[in-house]
């Protein structure tokens, strides 16, 4: 996020594009309610009439898969209406003419067939967003990122913010809100195939030299090329490129697309290591399972979505033989000939800070109790809490410090609906559950509020055409697989599309989703594939069937985990 979460309240206008904060981040939705109470204008653009649409000044129902066409027309309306800031464009951006060459082809009128949006409403929204005196924030989420043209859409959003000067000044910017508590942190820490910690490129020889020196390894030992992406692990395993997969605290068989195919691919690996706190579906097929400590049992720092580092502390001792994750990595590394040893998380954090100039000022002392540090933060001055808003004054992180405007042509999604698979499938979030559900599914209140086989949201007219009633178990299937889940008739969604929350193990939407990733970010196109849904006449059978599947799955995982109750026999494995 170029803006901070608290700062959202003071924006003059908040435009949400493919982002449903009430389900993904209720605390962010709260800030938007408060912004509205303070007089902000709210624009919501989404195929669903989401909670925030209820308080929106303008709501636009956009067709699934039409993001680039819509945003190009939106930018076109901004130029045509005279809402762009020519001075800012001149001084702080490059490439306007080439950008406009593409944008001018997309008018509100000629894109209406693709987007389904009335030109007058689009123009009104463009005016509202672009002309807010206080400043506008453009919030987006997975509705942008899990599409075929995800990177292109992010380029287009950033360019739109630049030409209307809704970035580079207070109370304005772009707000991609991260889904998991520490996705921002994983990226900050260099859990990326192209970046060292602090967003320092692996392909930069100077960066490699710095890290080689700090880590005491010859620089030739550090790989000079970009590594593989997680979303390609299945294909790489099948192609014989990857032989071992060390899976730390993730459950790809629940969260990645086309789960049945991925399972086969991972089963073919020479070695699958899972380091986790729960017996997940991925742990079930692992060769080795290493018990890490849980949140609540260790100390550390998380990075919130708005770049805020905050400390968390251990409340209870580790269960059983669980060890801290960093201890486990250090011990394996030592055994493999590269000794690592740390006494505590502060020692690790301080080493990291010394290598990342943008994080250097985030000391543990500053983050004691309710303290925080928002990067970039270079000063260790206890009163300096960092940078709530990025790019103030229009200075960007490019070599020429200017924003490079980018526009792209619209392409249709990969798998369009057809006669056999007439419905669009889009994956969404369950408000009371999280990620693969291994954590929230083990919490009593949250599991009572929503449980298997999960839900498929379907428009009442699509349901009526199939004889489906609210609350009934239905069968949903695609070219990849099938699943049984519960119909939720929802008049707030658009006709022709069904929405499945991705937290369910029995009603698993990733049996259906298409595994297609884009070339740049390698993100799966989870928001668009084709499927069909049908009613099941015998609901008694259906209820029993899903209950049985659920009981069997839980029983299987409990049986696998039961192995840990039997003390080791003492025979060395490697003998």
């Amino acid at each position, binding site marked *: 996020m170029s803006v901070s979460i608290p700062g959202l309240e003071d924006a003059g206008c908040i435009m949400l594009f493919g982002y449903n*904060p*009430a*389900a993904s981040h*209720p*605390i962010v*939705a*709260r800030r938007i*309610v408060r912004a509205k*109470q303070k007089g902000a204008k709210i624009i919501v653009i989404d195929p669903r*009439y989401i*909670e*925030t649409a*209820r*308080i929106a000044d303008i709501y636009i129902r956009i067709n699934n898969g039409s993001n680039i066409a819509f945003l190009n027309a939106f930018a076109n309306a901004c130029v045509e209406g005279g809402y762009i800031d020519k001075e800012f464009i001149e001084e702080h951006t490059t490439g306007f003419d080439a950008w406009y060459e593409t944008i001018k082809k997309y008018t509100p009128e000629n894109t209406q067939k693709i987007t389904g949006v009335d030109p007058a409403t689009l123009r009104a929204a463009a005016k509202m967003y672009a002309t807010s005196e206080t400043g506008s924030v453009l919030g987006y989420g997975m509705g942008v990122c899990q599409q075929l043209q995800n990177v292109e859409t992010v380029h287009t959003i950033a360019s739109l913010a630049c030409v209307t000067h809704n970035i580079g000044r207070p109370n304005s910017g772009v707000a991609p809100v991260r889904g998991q508590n520490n996705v921002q942190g994983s990226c900050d820490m260099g859990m990326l195939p192209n970046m060292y910690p602090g967003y320092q490129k692996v392909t930069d020889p100077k960066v490699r030299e710095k890290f080689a020196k700090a880590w005491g390894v010859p620089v030739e030992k550090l790989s000079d090329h970009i590594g593989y992406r997680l979303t390609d692990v299945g294909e790489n395993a099948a192609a014989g490129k990857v032989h071992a997969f060390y899976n730390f605290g993730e459950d790809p068989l629940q969260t990645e697309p086309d789960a049945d195919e991925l399972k086969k691919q991972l089963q073919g690996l020479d070695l699958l290591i899972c380091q986790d706190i729960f017996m997940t579906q991925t742990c079930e097929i692992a060769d080795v399972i290493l018990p890490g400590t849980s949140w609540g049992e260790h100390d550390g720092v998380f990075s919130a979505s708005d770049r805020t580092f905050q400390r968390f502390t251990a409340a209870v001792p580790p269960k059983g033989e669980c060890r801290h994750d960093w201890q486990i990595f250090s011990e394996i590394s030592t055994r493999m000939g590269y000794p690592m040893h740390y006494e505590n998380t502060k020692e690790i954090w301080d080493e990291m800070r010394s290598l990342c100039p943008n994080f250097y000022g985030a000391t543990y002392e500053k983050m004691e109790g309710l303290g925080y540090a928002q990067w970039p933060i270079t000063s260790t001055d206890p009163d300096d809490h960092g940078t709530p808003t990025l790019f103030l004054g229009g200075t960007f992180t490019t070599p020429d410090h200017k924003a490079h405007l980018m526009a792209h042509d619209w392409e249709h999604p990969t798998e369009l609906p057809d006669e056999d698979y007439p419905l669009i499938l889009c994956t969404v979030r369950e*408000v*009371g559950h999280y990620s693969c559900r291994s954590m929230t599914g083990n919490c*009593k*209140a*949250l599991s*009572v*509020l929503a449980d298997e086989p999960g839900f498929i949201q379907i428009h009442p007219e699509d349901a009526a055409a199939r004889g489906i009633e609210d609350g009934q178990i239905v069968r949903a299937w695609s070219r990849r697989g099938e699943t049984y889940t519960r119909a939720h008739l*929802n*008049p*707030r969604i658009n006709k022709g599309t069904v929405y499945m929350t991705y937290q369910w193990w029995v009603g698993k939407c990733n049996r259906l989703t298409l595994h297609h990733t884009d070339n740049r970010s390698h993100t799966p196109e989870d928001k668009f594939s084709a499927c069909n849904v049908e009613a099941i006449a015998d609901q008694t059978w259906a209820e029993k069937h899903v209950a049985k599947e659920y009981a069997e799955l839980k029983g299987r995982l409990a049986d696998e985990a039961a192995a840990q109750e039997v003390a080791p026999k003492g025979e060395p494995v490697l003998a």
Partner: protein
Amino acid sequence: MANKFIVPDPGVCIGCKTCMAACLAKHDRGGEMAIPRLSVTYTLTVSAPVACHHCMDAPCVNACPVGALYEDPANHRVAIRQERCIGCRSCVMACPFGAVDIVTRTEPLVAGCEVFGTHEKAYVIKCDLCVDRPEGPACVQACLTKSLRLMDEDELARMQAQKRTDAVAGAGELSSIAGARIA
């Protein structure tokens, strides 16, 4: 003193069900049923939780043939005597808000110190205003947009007074006497 009740501000509600989770957790102890006593309800344009209104002339109390539901003026509410409930569901039918439910649980059939078997015991599930909770209703405290509030006689009177003031604000325009429109 009139009964109290919990009311939502639907404009501010974000439909997140935090109230339901807090309610469930509050009641998940001392043998109570782990079920939320209010339920967030969605229409095309409105999201808001629905809970017992603790009516002053409560249809559920009137409909209950065994006195399992009763007026509890000391606590300004409609209260429950679970031991009397026979699960007839008259209250479920009588409640105009759909805010009362009956749930059964298998329990041992005991006489003295002897267990004779099991039976299905019925329970009335509805808002009890968390009268045993010093901080007040769990849902009101948990609501992160401050959409929920506990309405009592004073609050209701303030609201009425404000509405009367708003209603009369433009009435000067209707005056037959010149000059009376000065606000």
